[in-house]
């Protein structure tokens, strides 16, 4: 049976009001035009602007900007932070979803709410809370200074803030899926004599691998791109505590636009790659990723 509701743009004018479940052509054109203009204006143009501005002063300037020592240090720091935060969050996500999906206990909804918490907290506050704990005037400030441990304005602080902001991504993809899958496979494996860990690695993990990949990709994109939280804890020390987004800010504030956009373009490329992988996973493995499309 033909789908009479989805109207191609250029269908001839309805005959006697058919198809019934769509609007007249002028209305359709107006709505499509509005949608396209809005999306191009608000989404595509900014993206294009990044690349145009990055290359405005020529390829030479561009390459110089991204290979400059401070920029390279920023790239290294960004990669390092992601390399610590993402695996940590993967372990957390697996642990949390194992607990939530395979067992019945009181307080699950509280746990779920806690996991969703970072999404409702401003990035600045996400950094603020660690400054309050570990900063010079923070609760542990004197103790840390006495022992010459640097958390704020150093790598550990940046990692902590990044973890706070990104840990929900993996967990949120795994929990609904594992809840949907239930405990049958694991119980079957256990009844056949497999140990807990073996069951986990050989039965559970394969079942959730695409959702895990999806969560990792989102987590990584956010970890590398986080700005507000890291900005608060970082100290902005060139070459030492600047991630790529922070480096972009510094360059921009110095009116070094070409360089700022050059570094930004790397992040934009990362975003595009993330989008491609994300869409690819959604199209191919839609049923093996979280049942609800949530962000």
């Amino acid at each position, binding site marked *: 049976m*033909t789908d009479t509701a989805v109207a191609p743009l250029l269908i001839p004018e309805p*005959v*006697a*009001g058919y198809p019934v479940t769509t609007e007249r052509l002028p209305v359709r054109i107006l709505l499509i035009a509005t949608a396209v203009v809005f999306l191009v204006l608000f989404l595509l143009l900014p993206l294009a602007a990044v690349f145009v501005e990055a290359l405005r002063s020529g390829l030479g300037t561009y390459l110089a900007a991204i290979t400059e020592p401070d920029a390279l240090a920023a790239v290294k720091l960004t990669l390092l932070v992601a390399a610590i935060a993402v695996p940590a969050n993967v372990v957390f996500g697996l642990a949390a979803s194992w607990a939530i999906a395979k067992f019945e206990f009181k307080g699950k909804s509280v746990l779920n709410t806690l996991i969703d918490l970072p999404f409702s907290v401003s990035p600045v506050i996400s950094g603020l809370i660690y400054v309050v704990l570990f900063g010079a005037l923070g609760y542990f400030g004197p103790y840390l200074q006495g022992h010459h441990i640097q958390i704020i304005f150093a790598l550990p602080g940046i990692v902590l803030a990044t973890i706070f902001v990104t840990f929900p991504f993996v967990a949120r993809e795994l929990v609904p899926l594992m809840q949907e899958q239930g405990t049958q496979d694991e119980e079957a494996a256990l009844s056949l004599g497999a140990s807990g860990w073996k069951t986990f690695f050989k039965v559970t993990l394969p079942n959730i691998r695409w959702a895990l990949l999806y969560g990792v990709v989102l987590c990584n994109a956010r970890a590398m791109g986080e700005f507000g939280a890291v900005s608060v804890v970082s100290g902005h020390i060139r070459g030492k505590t600047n991630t790529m987004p922070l480096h972009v800010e510094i360059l921009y504030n110095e009116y070094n636009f070409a360089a700022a956009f050059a570094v930004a373009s790397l992040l934009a490329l990362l975003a595009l790659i993330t989008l491609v992988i994300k869409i690819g996973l959604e199209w191919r493995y839609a049923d093996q990723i979280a049942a609800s499309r949530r962000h």
Partner: protein
Amino acid sequence: MDARAVNEVNSAAGGIWPLSWTTWWDRPMHVVVDNVVRTFGVTPALHGVSLEIEPGELVALLGPSGSGKTTLLRILAGLDIPTEGRVMFDGDDALTLTVQQRNVGLVFQNYALFRHMNVLDNIGFGLRVRPRSRRPSRKEIRKRARELLDLVQLSGLEKRFPSQLSGGQRQRVAFARALAIEPRLLLLDEPFGALDAKVRRDLRRWLLELHNKTGHTTVFVTHDQEEALELADRVVVMSEGKIQQIGTPDQVYDTPNSPFVFSFIGESSVLPVRVDQGKVWLDQHKLDLRAGDVPNGPARLFLRPHDVDVLDNAPGAIVGEVSVLRRHAGLRRVDLEVGAERNRIEIELPADLSLNLASPVAFLPRRYRLYPASQAVET
């Protein structure tokens, strides 16, 4: 229904119908479908279907899925447009009318009730969206909606929401909603398909009563032949986009005109035979059956399993060997192997007949049909 009958029914119903409401009763609609073809791309769903529906008739479009019955219904409703052909409502071309203009009442299998409105608002919807000139006052709309609620025997449920109703209740609300716009034609798309067996039976009875009360021309689509035979004034048997037969329930059951209709309606058993010079032959054995005007050559004998007489070795009987015996309520189902080719045929016999495996049984069908072998059974 004439005005006198209208008044009788009205007073019998306690006079709940304001007289203005009876205006549509004396003009139920006459529908003509003329050679309607509907193709989707290269796939034809309807191959030139023609049909005439008398005012006030309750007609069933019966057939398996893919037979085109729903397509035909949607064309009548205005939800679909035929590629060729005409549809006439009381002599006017219906195809120039949009769905909104056709004034048909539609009832869907899955109710299609508006979940964000309560029952009363659902029923009154069709009246509320009318252009100002034809729109009754809000009070009047509420009044009519309540009357319809009484008609479908759901009084008191005005404030409920569809999610708070059972399936049978939802469907009755859907009927009330369709009736509210004073339609000239009622179109029902497998209206009881989503309901439990018991609710289905109850609603079938209810629909018959409703139809007798209101007298609308009604067309309903179903794949359930029991339902069609029970409810319809006439049954339109369809298959693969074509009409196989139109007739009263008795006609399509007793005198089916094709193997498809015979096997679709009621139970059937088939036996390959040969027709030669007006006589029916099974292998070398002449059967005491009339060949009618079936041409010479291979043919198929269709009979109803329960419609047989057991004969003791009468010369013109069909003889077979029992291969399977099954008890079926108060009767016995017997699979026989018949003839040189040991064709299997199933018949129903009284349980008190003593039978064993491999014992011979001779029988003749009381009523039967013969079709040339070339007339295929489409499913």
